[in-house]
C-alpha cells in the first residue's frame, strides 16, 4: 500500500525545477491545482502532433481518431467514478461550470419561488453563488447546514432542516479549507428520504479518495481534471440518467443538437445534449490520461499516503507557538492544513515562504463565509498530494519559524 514517492516525483517534470537560483520547489498548493505528470502532458502533445481534428461529424481518419480518443477518455472517467454508463458523464470546463449546469438546467426547470435548497456553511463560492443568482431570479430559499467549532457538519441540524422538505441538497464532499471529509452517503440517504435531489461538489474528493457514484447514490456529482493531475479547462458532471434526460439543454449550439431548422431544434441525446460547440478535445484526452495515471497507482494507496503526510504535518504545525490550525483532526480530513500565525497576515506568511520556494496559498480560498464563521479574514493553506513528502513538511515548518523571526 505504500507509495514509492521518490519514483512518483520523477513523473512530474515541474518538481525538478528551481524557483530561483539554487532554490528548489516545495509545492504545497495541490488543493488549488495539482501538478501534471509527464504522461498527461505527452498525451495532449501527441494529440496535437498526430491526431488533431474536430470530433464527431468528420469522416476522415483524423476526425475518427480524435473522436475515439475524446470518447475513450469519457469511458475512463466514467469507470474511475464507477458510473454505470459513460453517457452519464458530461464534459464541462470545471466543477464550477458543472454546478452552474445543474443550476441553469435542472434547477430552473424544477424550482419555483419558495422552494428550499440546502447548502452548507463550508461551501466554496462555486456552490454558493449559482444559488444566490437563482435566489435573486426565482425567489428560491437557501438554508445552510452549520459547521461546528471542530470544523464538521452539524448533522443534527441537517435533520431539522430536512423537515422543511427541501428540493435540493448541494454540498461539498471535502472542504477545500478545513479538509473535512463529509459523510456524503449519509447526507444523500437522508436527503432522499426527505424527497430531495442531491448534488455533490466532489472537486476535492475525486482527486484524493475512491469515489463511487453508485455506492453514494449521488444524483449529480461535479469535479475538475486540473485538481487530479489533469489539465485546466476540463471537468465533468455526473448525473443519473433519468434526471439528465429530463433536463433541458444548457448551452445551445453545434454538437448538442439532433436536428436544426430555421425556427426550431431538437436536442441531441446524452451526453452530447449538454456539450455545445467544439469542446476542449486535447484537455479531455489529458483528463483520460490523468485518470489512467491515478488508477495505475491506486486511489486507496494515494489516500493512505496523504493521510500519513497530513497527520505528520498537523503534528508538526501544532508545535509552533502562535500557529492555529483549522478543521478536524487528521482522521476526519483530507490533505489540507489551513492555519493562521499570530500577528502575521497569511499573505505575508506565503510571501516569505515563497522566498524558499515553498508554495502555499493565502487568502479566503473562495470560502469567504466559512472564514467569517471562524472570525478570520484569511488563512494560509498547505495541501498535499501523492507526490508530497515529510521533508517538504519540515521545510514548511522551518519556513514558518523564519516568518516568526522576521515579524518577531
Amino acid at each position, binding site marked *: 500500500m505504500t507509495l514509492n514517492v521518490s519514483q512518483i516525483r520523477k513523473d512530474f517534470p515541474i518538481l525538478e525545477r528551481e524557483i530561483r537560483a539554487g532554490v528548489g520547489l516545495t509545492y504545497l498548493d495541490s488543493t488549488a491545482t495539482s501538478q501534471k505528470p509527464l504522461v498527461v502532458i505527452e498525451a495532449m502533445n501527441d494529440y496535437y502532433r498526430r491526431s488533431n481534428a474536430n470530433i464527431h461529424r468528420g469522416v476522415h481518419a483524423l476526425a475518427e481518431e480524435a473522436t475515439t480518443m475524446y470518447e475513450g477518455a469519457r469511458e475512463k472517467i466514467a469507470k474511475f467514478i464507477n458510473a454505470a454508463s459513460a453517457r452519464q458523464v458530461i464534459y464541462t470546463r470545471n466543477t464550477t461550470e458543472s454546478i452552474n449546469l445543474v443550476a441553469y438546467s435542472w434547477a430552473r426547470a424544477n424550482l419555483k419561488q419558495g422552494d428550499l435548497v440546502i447548502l452548507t456553511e463550508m461551501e466554496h463560492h462555486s456552490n454558493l453563488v449559482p444559488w444566490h443568482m437563482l435566489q435573486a431570479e426565482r425567489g428560491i430559499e437557501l438554508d445552510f447546514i452549520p459547521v461546528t467549532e471542530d470544523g464538521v457538519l452539524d448533522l443534527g441540524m441537517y435533520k431539522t432542516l430536512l423537515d422543511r422538505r427541501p428540493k435540493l441538497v448541494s454540498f461539498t464532499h471535502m472542504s477545500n479549507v478545513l479538509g473535512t471529509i463529509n459523510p456524503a452517503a449519509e447526507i444523500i440517504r437522508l436527503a432522499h428520504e426527505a424527497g430531495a435531489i442531491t448534488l455533490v461538489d466532489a472537486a476535492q474528493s475525486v482527486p484524493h479518495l475512491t469515489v463511487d457514484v453508485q455506492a453514494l447514490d449521488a444524483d449529480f456529482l461535479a469535479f475538475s481534471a486540473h485538481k487530479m493531475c489533469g489539465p485546466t479547462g476540463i471537468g465533468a458532471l455526473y448525473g443519473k440518467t433519468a434526471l439528465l434526460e429530463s433536463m433541458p439543454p444548457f448551452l445551445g449550439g453545434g454538437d448538442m443538437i439532433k436536428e436544426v431548422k430555421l425556427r426550431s431544434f431538437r436536442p441531441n441525446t446524452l451526453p452530447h445534449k449538454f456539450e455545445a460547440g467544439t469542446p476542449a478535445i486535447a484537455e479531455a484526452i489529458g483528463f483520460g490520461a490523468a485518470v489512467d495515471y491515478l488508477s495505475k497507482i491506486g486511489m486507496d494507496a494515494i489516500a493512505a499516503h496523504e493521510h500519513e503526510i497530513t497527520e505528520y504535518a498537523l503534528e508538526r504545525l501544532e508545535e509552533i507557538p502562535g500557529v492555529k490550525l483549522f478543521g478536524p483532526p487528521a482522521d476526519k480530513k483530507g490533505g489540507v492544513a489551513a492555519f493562521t500565525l499570530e500577528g*502575521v*497576515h*497569511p*499573505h*505575508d506568511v506565503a*510571501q*516569505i515562504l515563497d*522566498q524558499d520556494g515553498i508554495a502555499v496559498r*493565502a*487568502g*479566503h480560498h473562495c470560502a*469567504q463565509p466559512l*472564514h467569517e464563521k471562524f472570525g478570520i*479574514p*484569511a488563512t494560509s493553506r498547505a495541501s498535499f498530494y501523492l507526490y508530497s513528502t515529510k521533508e517538504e513538511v519540515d521545510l514548511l515548518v522551518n519556513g514558518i519559524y523564519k516568518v516568526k523571526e*522576521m*515579524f518577531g
Partner: protein
Amino acid sequence: MDDLYREVIIEHYKNPSYRGKLDPHDISFADNNPLCGDHIQIDLRVGTDGLVTDARFDGHGCAISQASADLLMESIIGKPLEEVKKLNKDSILEMLGIDLGPVRLKCALLSLKVLKAGVYGLGEASDSLVE
C-alpha cells in the same frame, strides 16, 4: 525579500501612525480586495480651502496593504484634494520603495483605490482609479 519586507514596511505595519477612524469626517469610504478579503476604510476631514486636514485608515490586511495605507495617510494630510486625485500606482510604489508583482500590487493599491473612490464619491473602488 529583504527588499519586500524593508524595515519601513514592517514598522508601519506594526506601529501605524494613522490607524483609526475620524468622527466627524467629511469623506468616508470602505471596500475589500476581492482576492483575499482584505478590508480598508478611510476617513478624511477636508477644510473649506479643499486641503485634507486629517486622515485615518482602518481594517485588516497584510503588511504590504497596511503599511501602504499608513504611508498614504501620512502623505495626503495637508494636501489639496485635487492633488490626491492625481495619485496613482507609481506614487504608492515610490512611497513603499519596492517593486511588486501583480498579486501583491493589489494589496499595495487597495488603500489608494478606496481613498480615490471616496474622494470621487463612487460606489466602488476599482482598478481604473489607480492606473
